[in-house]
C-alpha cells in the first residue's frame, strides 16, 4: 500500500504491507484499514484507490503483490 500527500501525513507512513484473505476486494481493504482505527480515519469511505497504477473501483479484486495506492484529491498544474 502507498499513501500520498495528506494521506501519507495522516497515516504517518508512505508505504505499508497488509495481508488480506484471498478474493478480497478494494472495499474489503478499506474496511480492514478503518477497523484498525485512528490513523486510518484520514481515509474517507469513498477514498480513490489505484491498483497497479490504474484507478480502480471498490469491487476490484486484489491479488497477491498488487500495488494499492490511496489517492487524495489531485492538484496538479
Amino acid at each position, binding site marked *: 500500500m*502507498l499513501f*500520498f*500527500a*495528506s494521506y501519507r501525513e495522516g497515516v504517518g507512513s508512505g508505504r505499508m504491507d497488509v495481508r488480506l484473505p484471498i478474493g478480497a476486494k478494494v472495499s474489503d481493504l478499506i474496511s480492514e484499514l478503518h477497523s484498525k482505527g485512528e490513523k486510518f480515519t484520514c481515509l474517507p469511505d469513498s477514498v*480513490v*484507490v*489505484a491498483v497497479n*497504477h*490504474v*484507478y*480502480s*473501483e*471498490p469491487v476490484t479484486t486484489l491479488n497477491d503483490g498488487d500495488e494499492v*495506492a490511496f*489517492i*487524495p*484529491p*489531485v*492538484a*496538479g*498544474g
Partner: protein
Amino acid sequence: MSFVAIVRQPINPSDILQHVGSEEDGANILFVGVVRNHNDGFPVKGVRYEAYEKMAKSVLEEIVMEARSQFGTDRIATTYRIGNLVIGDVSVAVAVSSHHREQSFLASRFIMEEIKKRLPVWKKEFYVDGREDWTEGLTPPSVLVTEPK
C-alpha cells in the same frame, strides 16, 4: 512523435515547443503553468509538488493518447516538474502542433483539464506567513470514461 516526461529539473518551455511542429502544421501552441505568488488571496512563497511518479507518467501518456485520437495530431509534448519550486518556476508545459489552429487549441486545453482532474500529483503551498497546506484538489473519476468524439 509524442513526448511525455516527469522531471525534477527546471523546465525550459522553448525546449518543449521544439518537440512539436512539422512542415504540415500551421498552428503551434505552448501552455506554460507557473508557480504564482498567491492562492485564494494568500501570499505564497513556494510550493512542493509530490507525485505518484510511475502512475503519473502512465496517466500523462494516457491523456496524450486520448488527445491524439480526439484531435487528430500526434505532435504533442508535455512535461511535468515535481519537487520544490519557487515563484515563477515552470511546473508544467504542454506543446501541441497541428495543421489548423482548432485542433491545437482544443488538444492543449483538453490535456490541461485532464491533468487537473486525474494526474496523481499533489501540491503543498508554503505561505509567506509561515503556514503550509495541501492545495484543495479534485477527486479523480474511479472509472475513466472517455467522452465519445
